[in-house]
């Protein structure tokens, strides 16, 4: 009951908002280059479906690849840091430097240095996305129950056994929390990089279409691309939340339900 209400209420609010927007545009007779009506945006999504679809795929691919690379890279780094205090102390500060430097400031350099647009965008998105996974997973790997660690020691577990059977599973909720943040960030990273690349005339995904439509005052297309970016963001969030729920539902408080 309350669950169906959970999706019904926001849907109603959204529909009401769209209706008010449509009505306002029609009544006040606002020209489409200032504010297009939702119907005009929807029409644009259909008529320019091909172009926008290709842009959508490009942005989606960049985001997904960057997130996958962030999972692999940050996961591996976190495991290495957890195994070696020396490595962590020498390298972690640079991870922080990379994290706190605004990507807009670095992106032009990367785009100049790297010829392949996709690779350049991937690097930018990766830089933005890897840190939450790294720092969360690292904390997770280090917050293993001390008594369980002692138990593994008593039974003479190897480092590999301890990592695989104990540290990785107990870091899983932390990793998944980082993954949710990184999912959104990898999209932001990809979009920012597309803008920077687009400003230099390199064609890419949805953000490039927004930039282009802005130059040409094609507001419906701009809004349509914007809508698609939001949709990608929501889709990423929902699928990562579902993944996290699925992996943790048997044991972690964040995902278990009371009525079992």
């Amino acid at each position: 009951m309350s669950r169906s209400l959970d999706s019904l209420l926001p849907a109603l609010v959204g529909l009401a908002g769209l209706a008010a927007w449509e009505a306002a545009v029609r009544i006040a007779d606002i020209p489409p280059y200032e504010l297009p009506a939702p119907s005009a945006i929807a029409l644009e999504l259909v008529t320019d479906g091909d172009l926008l679809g290709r842009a959508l795929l490009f942005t989606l691919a960049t985001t997904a690849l960057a997130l996958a690379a962030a999972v692999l890279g940050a996961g591996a780094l976190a495991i290495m840091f957890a195994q070696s205090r020396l490595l962590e102390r020498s390298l972690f500060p640079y991870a922080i430097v990379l994290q706190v430097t605004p990507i807009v400031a670095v992106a032009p350099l990367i785009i100049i240095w790297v010829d392949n647009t996709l690779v350049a965008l991937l690097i930018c998105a990766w830089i933005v996305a890897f840190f939450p996974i790294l720092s969360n997973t690292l904390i997770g790997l280090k917050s293993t129950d001390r008594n369980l660690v002692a138990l593994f020691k008593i039974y003479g577990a190897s480092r590999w056994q301890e990592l695989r059977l104990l540290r990785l599973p107990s870091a899983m909720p932390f990793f998944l929390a980082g993954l949710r943040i990184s999912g959104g960030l990898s999209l932001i990273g990809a979009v920012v990089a597309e803008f920077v690349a687009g400003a230099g005339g390199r064609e890419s995904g949805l953000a490039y279409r927004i930039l282009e439509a802005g130059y040409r005052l094609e507001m419906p297309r701009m809004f349509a691309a914007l809508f698609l970016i939001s949709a990608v963001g929501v889709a990423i969030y929902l699928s990562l939340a579902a993944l996290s729920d699925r992996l943790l539902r048997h044991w972690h408080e964040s995902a278990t339900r009371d009525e079992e």
Partner: protein
Amino acid sequence: MPPIVSLKDISKRFANGTEAVGGVSLAIRRGDFTSLLGPSGCGKSTVLRLIAGLTPPSGGTVAWTDARASGGRPLGFVFQEPTLMPWARVLDNVLLPLRLAGARGPKAENQARAALARVGLEGFERSFPRQLSGGMKMRVSIARAVVTTPLLLLMDEPFAALDEITRLKLNDDLLALWRQQGFGAVFVTHSVFESVYLSNRILVMSPRPGRIAADFEIDAPYPRGAEFRLSPEYASHCAAVSAALAQAMAA
């Protein structure tokens, strides 16, 4: 009977300078149920961790008689909390010591099932720890500790967090398990009544630094039951141990 493990003049000083244990010598024999009794902070848990090899002694030696002891130690350990892996099913939690020793397949699984049956948990193999009560989690923890048929079972106040009814039941079940499997048991507790009921030997420890202040033999025969708790013999043992404990704390 030769001891399973002997501690000779063991002392332990932590990095912060605290002297937790100062000169403890004791021998744990096979078939003994030994309680380490003392107030909190008297170093009794530290003695347990020293026996388990979880922390090295600052002085003295821990000597194992059995040859098996040179490799993986033939011991089980039960912590104050159940200390189960929350992501693993009950059966997998009990299988853990066997898996870590490289045993797998149906033989190991049957061993784990048998251990669960011995603590009265058949039918809960597929459950997750969070679905169990505190007492049942502790039973899983005990099953895991005995699944390797250890020579020595070390227990660090395992029932301290449980309610009275559950604790009394677990006391009886633990004694039954001990008589059945014949391991040496070392049981850390701060309850005089619990130690007298369970043990045939009680070592009373004095705090800061931890030393053995008194050594009691409780020669009442096993199996012990509810009537033992009501017997004058039980009361007089409790009185003597309590007096020794009070003296150790005053010293």
